[in-house]
């Protein structure tokens, strides 16, 4: 009965979403106040029934209702309750339901938190959002119903994939989906603006906080996924350029570009049609990612079980969504106007470069991701594109971008002057060069590119700080700066930390694969790793062999690590649980491999300098975004501008 209620709620929510779209779009077109008044209640109702549906599926997991096929496929009585809940979004059907839940939460928020937006325009936005969400609900109802019964009921479930039995990965999908779907808000604002045929700076101000929020979720979601891959997959890598990772990274790049171009549209009324195009592209890449992950057209370690019918549905949905949006764009963009001009040396120019570089980076990643598909479709053979391609092409646009960032941050709108710019940048430059040189040689002999990478990171951080110092010299308190400005500086410091972490980790990491017996000692990067002993260990739903490795430096014990090799009982798949000693300046990483017989085990030990800066940088970026979002300007009702956008 419970699962049927869940399905019924979803059907109801679908109907409400359809009414919401119609009332919103038609009500705005024909100016019918009584239709417009329907939009908010429908959005609220849609959320209530989606949440109910999601809650009922979760309930089926908690009580181990193995008469539901989806539960039987992804859970088990031996699974701890926390993972039973996380198992709801472990596979295709449930994760789509989570996507829909995220979308209805965004819808609810837009309908209640945007009092300053004129009702007609808000109705249009919500109308578009309703269409998008009803498309996803139809997808679930037609091809991916999670409530399907299994008759006769299974006695025991097949258990959750052991790779997913991890706290970081349990919360990674909800956050990432919130980000993906959040881009639908910017998309809907863009489509609504195209329908009205007007893009004003008020419009840009409305969209900015939503875009920032989605971007924050994406940033944290991607960082979590990368952190998980680092400690759970057992290889010590943190990014693999896998199609699914790329599918999350491309929308992030687009959202980043969008945030910057919105700044120009808001402040200067420029880049209007470009901003609209970015808003459409960001969500398009989210949809594209969904398609790639779920249709099975690409090989990926993360790919969901594929089904051509599902692939076809998303492809049609994707084509319709983006096609209509771009059709509106062709119709309206030429008349949006381009506003006042700007000089070559100005903040506008630097933001334009930032935008182009980010879009080029996303484009190159898209090419690499889809290249195998193109070749196969053209009958030119099966190939795969690996990390060397991505590492190289990603650097080409992003390295100059990061180097120019320091200058861009300090230049003024419309027209910047060389003289004050040079004065401001002299100090950070004079400090950055020796600091970068010192850091470059701290771990070994650097190449020129390594130095440039480290310099870029230090340079961005220092030039962000010099902005703060500058303000203080002008006699103003740092905290009197606009929040969006502080947020920008903090986010850029985060980027600098990230660049620093990536460069140092990629170049100076050391790893060794060894065969060790209990009692053996090896040396790596000045640390002595000793495999003390091996013993059998037992978890709630797995058996493991656990190594005990003590690490000494100059005779003093630094830490003791307990890497495990686990075998989960139900799916009998072996898993590596690495032992990691995390630190600000370096990680020590020990992963237990296989029993080689004659009492020796293969071990992989690694020394990874500054690896934490990668995720720390991402978190600082997200925090910067949060600061920007708290800008009071975004919440104030500005009647003068807001009457007719």
């Amino acid at each position, binding site marked *: 009965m419970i699962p049927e209620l869940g399905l019924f709620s979803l059907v109801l929510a679908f109907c409400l979403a359809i009414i919401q779209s119609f009332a919103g779009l038609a009500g705005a077109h024909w100016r019918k106040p009584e239709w417009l008044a329907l939009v908010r209640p429908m959005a609220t109702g849609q959320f209530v029934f989606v949440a109910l549906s999601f809650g009922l599926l979760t309930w089926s997991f908690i009580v181990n209702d193995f008469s539901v096929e989806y539960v039987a496929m992804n859970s088990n009585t031996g699974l701890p309750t926390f993972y039973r809940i996380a198992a709801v979004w472990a596979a295709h059907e449930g994760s789509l339901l989570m996507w829909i839940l995220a979308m209805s939460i965004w819808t609810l928020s837009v309908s209640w938190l945007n009092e300053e937006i004129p009702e007609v325009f808000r109705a249009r936005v919500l109308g578009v959002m309703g269409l998008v969400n009803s498309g996803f609900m139809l997808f679930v109802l037609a091809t991916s119903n999670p409530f399907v019964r299994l008759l006769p009921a299974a006695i025991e479930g097949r258990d959750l994939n052991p790779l997913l039995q991890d706290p970081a990965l349990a919360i990674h999908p909800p956050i990432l989906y919130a980000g993906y779907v959040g881009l639908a808000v910017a998309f809907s604002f863009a489509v609504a603006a195209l329908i009205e045929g007007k893009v004003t700076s008020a419009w840009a101000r409305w969209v900015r906080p939503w875009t920032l929020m989605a971007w924050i979720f994406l940033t944290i979601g991607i960082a979590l996924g990368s952190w998980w891959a680092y400690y759970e997959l057992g290889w010590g890598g943190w990014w693999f350029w896998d199609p699914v990772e790329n599918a999350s990274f491309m929308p992030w790049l687009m959202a980043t570009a969008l945030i910057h171009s919105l700044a120009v549209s808001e402040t200067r009324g420029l880049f209007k*049609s470009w901003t609209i*195009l970015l808003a*459409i*592209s960001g969500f*398009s890449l989210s949809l*594209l990612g969904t*398609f790639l992950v779920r*249709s*099975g*057209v*690409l*090989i990926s370690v993360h790919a969901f079980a594929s089904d*051509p019918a599902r*692939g*076809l549905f998303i*492809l049609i949905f*994707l*084509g319709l969504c*983006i*096609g209509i949006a*771009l*059709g509106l*764009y*062709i119709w309206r*963009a*030429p008349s949006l106007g381009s506003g006042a001009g700007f000089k070559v040396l100005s903040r506008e120019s630097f933001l334009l470069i930032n935008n182009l570089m980010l879009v080029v980076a996303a484009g190159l990643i898209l090419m690499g991701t*889809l290249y*195998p*598909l*193109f070749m*196969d*479709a053209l009958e030119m053979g*099966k190939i795969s594109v690996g990390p060397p391609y991505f590492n190289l092409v990603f650097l080409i646009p992003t390295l100059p971008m990061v180097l120019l960032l320091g200058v861009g941050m300090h230049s003024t709108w419309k027209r910047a002057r060389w003289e004050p710019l040079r004065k401001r940048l002299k100090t950070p430059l004079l400090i950055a060069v020796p600091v970068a040189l010192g850091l470059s040689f701290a771990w070994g002999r650097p190449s020129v590119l390594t130095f440039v990478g480290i310099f870029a990171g230090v340079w961005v951080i220092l030039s962000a700080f010099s902005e703060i110092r500058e303000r203080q010299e002008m006699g103003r308190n740092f905290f009197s700066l606009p929040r969006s400005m502080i947020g920008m500086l903090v986010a850029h410091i985060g980027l600098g930390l990230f660049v620093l972490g990536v460069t140092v980790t990629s170049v100076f990491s050391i790893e060794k694969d060894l065969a060790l017996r209990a009692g053996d000692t090896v040396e790596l990067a000045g640390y002595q790793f000793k495999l003390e002993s091996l013993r059998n260990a037992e978890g709630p739903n797995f058996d493991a062999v656990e190594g005990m490795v003590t690490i000494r430096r100059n005779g003093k014990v630094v830490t003791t690590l307990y890497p495990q090799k686990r075998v989960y009982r139900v799916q*009998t*798949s072996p898993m590596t649980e690495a032992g990691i000693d995390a630190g600000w300046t370096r990680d020590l990483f020990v992963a237990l491999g296989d029993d080689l017989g004659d009492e020796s085990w293969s071990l992989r030990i690694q020394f990874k300098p500054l690896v934490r800066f990668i995720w720390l940088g991402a978190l600082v970026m997200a925090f910067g975004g949060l600061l920007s979002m708290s800008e009071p300007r975004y919440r104030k009702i500005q009647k003068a501008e807001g009457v007719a956008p």
Partner: protein
Amino acid sequence: MSRFLAPILILVVLVGFFFIGLHKNPNIVPSPLIGKPAPQYELPLLLKPGETLGTEKLLGQVYLLNVWGTWCFACRAEHGVLMEIARQNIVPIYGFNSRDDPQKARQWLADLGDPYVASMVDTDGLVGIDWGVYGAPETFLIDQTGIVIHKLIAPMTMRIWHEDFLPLIQQLKAARP
């Protein structure tokens, strides 16, 4: 005007490619061995360690070569299907026990039944490399002259057996009775 058209053109091209891509399976990697002679090897037998078998000795018959190991979870799922195919007595199945403990492998056959005419033992996996084995289970179809006709990288199912293997086997037998 034309610059506003570019995005939708990109979309149309992408959607076109995706549509074609939907009808292709990226996981099928054609074996370079297909249509070529099977690699030359000779390996001891699992149940009669004194005797050996290899490409040379198997010439003159159409047969299946099934790669298995007790460490391979999907092999257990496939085993019942292989038993059924063996019962049908259409082609002999030879086992290729890969990177395994012979003791455990013999126990496996004693417990689950033995669908194989004989199983060869490739303890260190070296011959498996010649065959391009990268997982298990894998099943090869080899003709009378020792040419590899077909390869399956997945557990055998009755459906695959009927749709892919049987027609090929009937052709081979019809061509050279």
